[in-house]
């Protein structure tokens, strides 16, 4: 088990008077897997934005180990070992699948280091492993721009794996996947957890149940309920939020 | 204090005419005498400051003064004669008239007398020039004349100048009381010349040094205020030009997000439309004087039509690709410019300003402003208000805002987004054309009139905050004033460079401008 503890407390994000996050608290222990669910607009993606430095919180504490994430930019946060899969997959269309993975591969990130970079055996093996894992071995030298939506989704996951981060933030990984793929993803994430901390946002409750981890329910930017999937599914407040309207 | 003196002066002046009348009639016959008598009479008439003396002396100077055998003096005006003493018409026998000739000595005396008498000439410009001349000549002899003139004068500006000349004449007079009055009056002015006069007289009047210093300090304070006011006006004037140039861009770029590099060329087309309208109406008796106001709608329509065609034909295909749009519109601008160069020639075209836009006027603190600058300042504000009103209160403005904020939803609500795009772009282009009408009054109308405006306009729009019309207004005037404030110690070119750099640094600090648009849309 490695890594640091992710700690959010009293985090609020206000967009133009609208509270996307409201006094949110969340703790993810090293090696823990956590599922986050909540209706549309609950603030799940915004929470990830705050952790990865995309959005600055209006108030509140966000730390990773003893580091204050609110003071760091996106690149430094990523280099701390926080990887992210975006809800809307964004891959580099002009580069091949292989090159996309290579860019994500954990290695020195400066311009000069990149100029002098040579892909050694270990790195190549790692790329091959991940390409196989995400089922894109055959497409390795195709430009990412011509992949299907599902394949881009996989490539995003692959790029996150390449970064080998301590904490993975996975936003809706199985949207648009077949049942078999969903199952595959669940197994993949289960395997990763333990070595890495993982936060998964997902609407698919079957998938969340398959993950078998602690679940956090967000609603209107605040923590509504937390516990096992059975616990939260029986929480009357959660039922109200999901079914009451 | 000054009030009381002015009052006293007025009372003294009321008593004057009777005496002057005598002096005029007394001196008049001398003009018919020998050269020595003539010169003496001219001097006396000059000093008396009677308005009736002016035509007589002019006639003498032009060789139009004639003497009858009985000694009566007549002024000849073409074929008509008037009595020099009474001003009544006269019909003398041709043989009886004898032209009065003069020599150089008389001529010199005439020049002096006429110069001083111009202060009571019916022509305001002559009076002003005379007052300034007398002010500079600084002679105690003029006190009487100036007092007369001051009493008669009604134009405030000339009154001020005469009072100043009077104050100077008093300052150099021997009478201590008059001196004091002079010093006080000079202290009430805002003239750098008065200041240097006071400074000079300080050595000659050690006993009055305290009062003189106080008067100088007074002038300095007034001069400082005037400088600030002057800079402020120049800055606002420059700001109004920037505002006019930027408003169209504030619509196309600020509201639509389309960067139109041909914007400057639209401004130029507006200026050329002014030229064409003026040429078409030349010679038309009633419409010719109105060519400039008529050019405003014409320029709007011409550039709006071109803008609409450009949006439908070209720009629309590049939505979402701002850099391509930038290059493409630059190319269009280039072609427009070259077309105008081929049709109208590369040299400057002349635009005639209507009379009400010519000349200079004085604002408070004696700031001279050219009328066209003042008009353009007002015009820019009117255009600004009209645009704000159009966007706020019309159906078109509503649709425009709807389309730019949430295109798909606007489309779903039945707004024809394509039409709105075209109209918005046409609207922005039309405003550029209107700006061209105004700028034709102060800039050279040539094919590259618009070249310099695109960068300025863009900086204004960005500085003010993209999408915020109020921001554009404040940014334009702010940049104008800053520019003019820098100019005295940096020179015009460096001031411009400084402003450019300052805006660049400012954008670093606040990439969204002074008044950022809030919400998600602005982050795209």
């Amino acid at each position: 088990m490695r890594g640091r503890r992710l700690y959010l407390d009293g985090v609020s994000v206000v967009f133009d008077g609208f509270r996307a996050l409201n006094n949110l608290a969340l703790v993810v222990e090293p090696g823990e897997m956590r599922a986050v669910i909540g209706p549309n607009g609950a603030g799940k993606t915004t929470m990830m934005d705050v952790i990865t430095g995309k959005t600055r919180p209006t108030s509140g504490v966000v730390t990773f180990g003893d580091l204050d994430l609110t003071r760091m930019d996106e690149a430094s946060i990523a280099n701390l070992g926080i990887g992210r899969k975006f809800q809307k997959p964004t891959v580099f269309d002009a580069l091949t699948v292989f090159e996309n993975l290579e860019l994500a591969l954990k290695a020195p990130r400066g311009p000069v280091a990149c100029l002098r970079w040579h892909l050694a055996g270990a790195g190549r093996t790692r790329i091959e492993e991940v390409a196989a894992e995400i089922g894109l071995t055959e497409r390795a030298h195709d430009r990412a721009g011509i992949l299907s939506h599902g394949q881009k989704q996989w490539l995003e996951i692959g790029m996150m794996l390449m970064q080998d981060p301590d904490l993975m933030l996975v936003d809706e990984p199985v949207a648009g996947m077949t049942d078999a793929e969903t199952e595959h993803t669940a197994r993949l994430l289960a395997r990763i957890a333990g070595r890495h901390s993982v936060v998964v946002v997902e609407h698919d409750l079957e998938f969340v149940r398959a993950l078998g981890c602690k679940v956090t329910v967000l609603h209107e930017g605040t923590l509504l309920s937390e516990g096992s999937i059975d616990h939260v599914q029986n929480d009357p407040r959660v039922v109200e939020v999901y079914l009451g309207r | 204090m000054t009030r009381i003196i002015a009052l006293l002066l007025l009372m003294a002046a009321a008593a004057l005419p009777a005496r002057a009348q005598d002096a005029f009639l007394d001196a008049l016959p001398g003009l018919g005498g020998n050269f020595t008598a003539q010169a003496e009479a001219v001097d006396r008439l000059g000093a008396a400051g009677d308005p009736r003396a002016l035509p007589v002396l002019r006639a003498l100077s032009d060789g139009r003064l004639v003497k009858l055998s009985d000694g009566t003096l007549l002024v000849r005006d073409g074929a008509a004669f008037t009595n020099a003493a009474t001003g009544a018409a006269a019909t003398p026998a041709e043989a009886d008239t004898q032209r009065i000739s003069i020599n150089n000595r008389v001529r010199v005396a005439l020049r002096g007398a006429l110069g001083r008498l111009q202060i009571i000439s019916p022509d305001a410009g002559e009076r002003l020039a005379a007052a300034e001349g007398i002010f500079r000549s600084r002679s105690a002899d003029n006190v009487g004349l100036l007092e007369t003139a001051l009493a008669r004068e009604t134009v405030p500006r000339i009154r001020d100048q005469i009072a100043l000349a009077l104050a100077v004449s008093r300052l150099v007079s021997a009478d201590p009381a008059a001196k004091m009055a002079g010093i006080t009056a000079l202290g009430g002015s805002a003239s750098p010349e008065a200041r240097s006069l006071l400074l000079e007289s300080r050595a000659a009047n050690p006993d009055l040094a305290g009062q003189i210093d106080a008067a100088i300090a007074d002038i300095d304070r007034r001069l400082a205020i005037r400088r600030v006011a002057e800079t402020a006006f120049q800055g606002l004037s420059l700001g109004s030009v920037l505002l006019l140039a930027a408003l169209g861009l504030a619509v196309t770029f600020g509201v639509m997000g389309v960067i139109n590099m041909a914007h400057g060329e639209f401004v130029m087309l507006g200026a050329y439309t002014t030229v064409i309208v003026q040429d078409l109406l030349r010679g038309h008796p009633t419409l010719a004087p109105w060519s400039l106001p008529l050019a405003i709608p014409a320029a709007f329509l011409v550039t709006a039509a071109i803008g609409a065609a450009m949006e439908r034909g070209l720009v629309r295909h590049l939505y979402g690709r701002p850099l391509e749009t930038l290059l493409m519109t630059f190319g269009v601008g280039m072609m427009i410019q070259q077309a105008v160069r081929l049709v109208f020639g590369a040299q400057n075209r002349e635009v005639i300003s209507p009379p009400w836009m010519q000349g200079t006027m004085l604002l408070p603190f004696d700031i001279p402003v050219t009328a066209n600058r003042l008009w353009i300042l007002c015009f820019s504000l009117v255009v600004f208000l009209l645009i704000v009103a159009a966007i706020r209160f019309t159906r078109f403005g509503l649709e425009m805002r709807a389309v730019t904020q949430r295109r798909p939803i606007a489309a779903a609500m039945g707004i024809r987004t394509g039409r709105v795009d075209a109209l918005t772009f046409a609207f922005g282009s039309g405003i550029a054309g209107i700006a061209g009408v105004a700028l034709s009054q102060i800039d050279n109308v040539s094919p590259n009139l618009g070249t310099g405006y695109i960068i300025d306009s863009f900086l204004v729009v960005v500085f003010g905050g993209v999408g915020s019309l109020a921001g554009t207004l404040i940014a334009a005037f702010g940049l104008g004033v800053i520019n003019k404030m820098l100019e005295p110690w940096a020179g015009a070119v460096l001031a411009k460079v400084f402003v450019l750099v300052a805006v660049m640094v400012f954008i670093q600090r606040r990439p969204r401008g002074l008044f950022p648009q809030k919400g998600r849309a602005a982050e795209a």
Partner: protein
Amino acid sequence: MSATTLHAPPLSRTRLGLRALMGAAVVILAAFPLLNMLPQDNVLHVSDFLVSVSGKWICYAILALSLDLAWGYAGILSLGHGAFFALGGYAMGMHLMRLIGPRGVYGHPTLPDFMVFLGYQELPWYWLGFQSFPFAMLMVLLVPGVLALVLGWLCFRSRITGVYLSIITQAMTYALMLAFFRNDMGFGGNNGFTDFKELLGMPLNTGAARATLFYASLLTLVGCYLFCLWMTGTKYGRVLTAIRDAENRVRFLGYDTTSHKLFAFVASAMMAGLAGALYVPQVGIINPGEFSPGNSIEAVIWVAVGGRGTLVGAVLGAFSVNGLKTWLTSAAPDLWLFVLGALFVAVTLFLPKGLVGLIQGRGK
């Protein structure tokens, strides 16, 4: 999963073909000064005009390469690259002015003519050192480089991109133009520098000097091309491409995009400076007109016409547009600006990948 499937595929035929074309063009160009020495009536004779004009085009091609690196690869559409070109040119011009020595009209031992004329008593401090060729060469690279560093740092750090960045770069070159027009800047005001006599001991008005400058430019072009080819072929090049297409996403992979863009921008500015330095002794004059925003934007159209994002495209674009310009400005001078404007419109609307895209489209 076999490792063999993951080896990079060979370069496409068209790409190889384009590179071969490029090589052939270099060989033909290299022959120009030699063919120029043939007698006039020989069919292979190349006129003085063609040699000098193609020498200029080579410098433009270097400028186009540098702009392509910034725009085509890193996505930084600079509308002020002409400023870097001009600054390199001015640095070289200062060296050439110092070399005139006492041969100026006024015969002053150190002061250039315009300074004597303007009543300078001694050389301004920023002119010191320019009599040395290595120092001048250093400045040719450093001055544009430092300007790009400062401007780029300010802009990239605050995430100014797209048209904002473009206009700021345009404002930069505009401001520099205004500044260089001033006499008291010490750069010769609107006349700039001219009447150069020699460079590296060679009198400039000889055929040998012209040929030497021509070859120096050609070598620099080839060098810059190979440098860019290498650079864009490394992982750094791929990072740049990624930044161009989705800068934010690159940040979340842990790359500090500011430093990557800055690196490319500075390298690009230095290349532009070099191009300017080679240009000035060939045309024999440099003045503030070189800073005019129109020049910069013309360079953009070379790259766009050739095909941005491909190095061959930049070079091809520079040669073809300038070839067209040279021909048209003598055949139908009034038409040139229409054609140039139409090129902007046509390329952006119909040919986003430029001539190279057209050729590649055929090749497929």
